[in-house]
């Protein structure tokens, strides 16, 4: 179990050991950076083609199947196309900011990967306030998006950037609030300790993942909805709504700068998916005790891929929201529900000391009702904000 599980860690130590002691920290840091960029860069290339193939299949099409076997070399062709395209900067654009925006977007997103634990002993930095670091770094992307929109001197870019700001700030709140129960019950802001808190097993060898509790399940759903909006993905892709504002803040970008935006968008999705796995799905832990022999990084990769599939599935299914629907949904539904979810977690924590054979089912029913009833009421009130059904006088 240990050999395969620690193969990357062991190899890294071995390579670092080849160098003199005083450069070893530098070498191991460089190795971690190189591996992370290679793995997630490759992940981006693969996702860009697999997502299109899955979307195609979900819409009864083939998807890209021309370049290479099963179209798998498509990212290579896309990359060559992006690199050889002319890099156009609008005449009236603020050249410096226009140039800096893609960099300002992609650098923080790479940094966010530093705190994620990808396997046993496999996190680049074990920060005590890892999750705070993650959200602090993640919110820097809003600035970059607005830089891109403002510096382009284009009305579509500006409208796209305004939408992006409104959306990202609104959804940052439920995103952070839905993680609060996890932090409260794990008692730590360190992602490694949050994973360790989910590493024990309960009845039948089932892992104590947060998602197997009422507040955890609700928290995961809230987190995923907010994460979809944070990474500008359909059905919350208003900032790039191509049917209304061409490409939003990306309108004036071409060539490699556009590719950087595209890359950052997917990397942001990967980072936030990794965080969802870490917070709610037990990180790199196996779901059952008897499955512990599978390497930890494989578990992480499996859960990661499943969540990415879910995001693609949602994208293939749901149509884009209107801006008022989007903001109503966040402020009148997600924010109150994630606040209530914190109270549900508190109830779950207090009722943990009950000593009774029926304690677990009772706790489950109680906590599930505590989150399901507000869900229903909030959904009803949200329905009240919709305009009445339109009456068509002439068109039937």
């Amino acid at each position, binding site marked *: 179990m240990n050999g395969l599980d620690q193969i990357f860690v062991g190899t890294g130590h071995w390579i670092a050991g080849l160098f003199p002691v005083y450069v070893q920290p530098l070498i191991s840091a460089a190795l971690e950076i190189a591996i992370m960029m290679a793995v997630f860069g490759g992940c981006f290339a693969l996702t860009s083609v697999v997502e299109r193939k899955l979307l195609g299949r979900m*819409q009864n*099409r083939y998807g890209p199947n021309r370049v290479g076997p099963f179209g798998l070399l498509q990212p290579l062709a896309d990359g060559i196309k992006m690199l050889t395209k002319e890099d156009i900067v609008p005449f009236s654009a603020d050249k410096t900011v226009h140039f800096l925006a893609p960099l300002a977007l992609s650098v923080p997103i790479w940094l966010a990967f530093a705190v994620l634990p990808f396997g046993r002993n496999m996190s680049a930095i074990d920060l005590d306030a890892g999750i705070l670091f993650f959200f602090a770094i993640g919110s820097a992307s809003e600035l970059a998006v607005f830089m891109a929109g403002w510096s382009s001197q284009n009305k579509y870019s500006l409208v796209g950037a305004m939408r992006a700001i409104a959306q990202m700030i609104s959804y940052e709140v439920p995103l952070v609030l839905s993680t609060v129960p996890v932090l409260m019950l794990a008692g730590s802001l360190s992602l490694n300790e949050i994973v360790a808190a989910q590493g024990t097993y309960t009845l039948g060898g089932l892992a104590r993942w947060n998602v197997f509790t009422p507040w955890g399940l609700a928290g995961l759903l809230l987190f995923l909805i907010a994460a979809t909006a944070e990474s500008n993905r359909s059905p919350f892709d208003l900032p790039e709504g191509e049917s209304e504002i061409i490409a939003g803040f990306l309108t004036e970008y071409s060539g490699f700068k556009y590719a950087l935006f595209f890359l950052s968008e997917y990397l942001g999705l990967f980072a936030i998916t990794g965080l969802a796995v870490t917070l709610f799905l037990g990180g790199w832990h196996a779901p059952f005790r008897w499955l512990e022999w599978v390497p930890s990084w494989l578990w992480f990769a499996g859960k990661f891929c499943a969540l990415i599939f879910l995001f693609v599935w949602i994208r*293939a299914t749901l149509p884009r929201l209107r801006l008022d629907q989007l903001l109503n949904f966040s402020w009148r539904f997600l924010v109150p529900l994630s606040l209530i979810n914190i109270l549900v977690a508190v109830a779950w924590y207090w009722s943990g000391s009950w000593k009774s054979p029926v304690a677990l089912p009772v706790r489950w029913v109680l906590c599930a009702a505590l989150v399901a009833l507000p869900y229903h009421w909030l959904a009803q009130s949200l329905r009240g904000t919709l305009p009445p059904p339109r009456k068509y006088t002439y068109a039937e």
Partner: protein
Amino acid sequence: MDGAGIIKGMIETARNFAGSYHDEARLTTVQYPEEKLAPVENARTIPFLVYDGAEALPGLRCTACMICEKECPPQCIYIVKDTVKKPDFVGKMQMQPKVFDIDISVCMSCGICVEVCPFDAIKMDQVFELSTGDRFGGLLLNKTQLAKPNDYFNKLHKTEAAEIDLRRVEEKQKAEAAAAAKAAAPAKPPMAPPPAP
């Protein structure tokens, strides 16, 4: 229940996803360069010139009347009249084009040239693989490139071509009858009995 619609939609896409792998009939797309759909009868791309008989240029129906050139909204047709006339299908002497060019990079496939042509000489084609490396010369078609036989027109637009052919046969018969009557006319009056006063 709240959110049931989303779940229903997700199930539908999941069924498409699984179904597209085992049920080929679900896939609505065609693998284009290998597999091609037959164009529908009313499909139209760019105009072409119809000719009768075996040879293209002598058989052109076009009489260089310039109506299509004047009517063409993006003005992609360029015609120069020839000085030599040639007989048309009923034997009447008609003008013919010396130059007939269509710039298909300008053509917007509206079909107005076809609507206005009184001689059924210009019709809409259904070719669409027109890409070329030379975007100026390669997309400017002359009358040799544009000329296509009536059989080809019959193959593309069956109904329309059959009507036109029938009408042309009738016109030809009428013209022949008229010619015969004209030829017989000088001989006729003496033979006919004078009407009773």
